[in-house]
């Protein structure tokens, strides 16, 4: 009886880890989208700027809460040998070290962005903003972590959801780049004001951002096709042998 209960709990934790991870991805995607919309100065009479700003803030906090539950359940669950330190120190876990490590990197970046935002007024605008750029690194790293460790990556709706998130963020970045180009050209003075990067040095920054925003999705899709979507990924990803011996009876896979 106790054994059955323990097994059920383990399954519950493992499913919670997977579920909260996916929800966190969706929330972080929403947060990134709102951040891009906010900095781009988009607003409508029925959707003023403080709504975007407030939603960006609250969605980020909610996403962080889900990430914390995601990590806690992954550590507490006994199916995968993941320790508390693995949540913040990357690439040392016996379980899928690289792909779990990316999650730790993303979490560290998320913490940096979160903490600097909470003490923004003490920190000053430019220092806060410099750290906040890490969001653009945090998000794709978190996505690749999800696709690389994800038990559910090859499930069609999870794959569609992940690719949908990727497409949405890439579209938002392109919109922002297009818009700041208009601002730089002086076509829309109202936009130029909200585009601090609109200068000659801004051109190279925008060009680099465009290259990255094209490269990242191409590389992610190519890697997906060559890696996680090919049979035998869980072995190649670095799952300990003890966790693979009974794939049919285990809660994960």
């Amino acid at each position, binding site marked *: 009886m106790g054994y059955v209960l323990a097994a059920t709990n383990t399954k519950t934790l493992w499913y919670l880890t997977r579920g909260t991870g996916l929800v966190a991805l969706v929330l972080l995607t929403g947060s990134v989208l709102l951040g891009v919309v*906010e900095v781009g*100065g988009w607003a409508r009479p029925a959707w003023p*700027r*403080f709504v975007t*700003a407030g939603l960006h803030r609250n969605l980020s906090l909610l996403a962080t809460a889900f990430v914390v539950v995601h990590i806690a359940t992954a550590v507490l669950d006994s199916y995968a040998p993941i320790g508390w330190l693995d949540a913040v120190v990357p690439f040392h876990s016996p379980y899928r070290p690289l792909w779990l490590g990316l999650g730790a990197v993303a979490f560290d970046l998320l913490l940096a962005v979160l903490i600097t935002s909470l003490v923004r*007024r003490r920190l*000053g*605008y430019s220092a806060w903003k410099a750290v906040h750029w890490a969001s653009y690194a945090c998000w794709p790293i978190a996505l690749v972590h999800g696709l690389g460790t994800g038990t559910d990556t090859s499930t069609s709706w999870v794959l569609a959801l992940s690719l949908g998130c990727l497409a949405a963020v890439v579209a938002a970045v392109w919109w922002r780049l297009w818009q700041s180009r208009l601002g730089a050209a002086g076509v829309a003075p109202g936009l130029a*004001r*909200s585009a601090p990067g609109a200068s000659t040095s801004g051109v190279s920054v925008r060009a680099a951002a465009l290259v990255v925003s094209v490269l990242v999705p191409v590389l992610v899709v190519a890697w997906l096709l060559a890696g996680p979507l090919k049979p035998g990924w869980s072995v190649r990803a670095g799952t300990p042998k003890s966790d693979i011996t009974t794939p049919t009876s285990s809660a994960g896979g």
Partner: protein
Amino acid sequence: MAVKLAVNWIECKGHGLCAQLFPERISLDEWGYPIIDPTPIPHQLEAHARRAADACPTLALLLQRET
């Protein structure tokens, strides 16, 4: 111990969130930059003033304590 609003005009980029969040004392000029009404802020409005100051994207709206 009343509070007073001030704008750092070097940092202000005219995002306009402050006027949306604290219209009791802040309006916008035709270019979108804030105009601060110097009427003293009563205690019950302080929370709104603080929220406006916290929401400023460039931290240009300052809430100062007057003694």
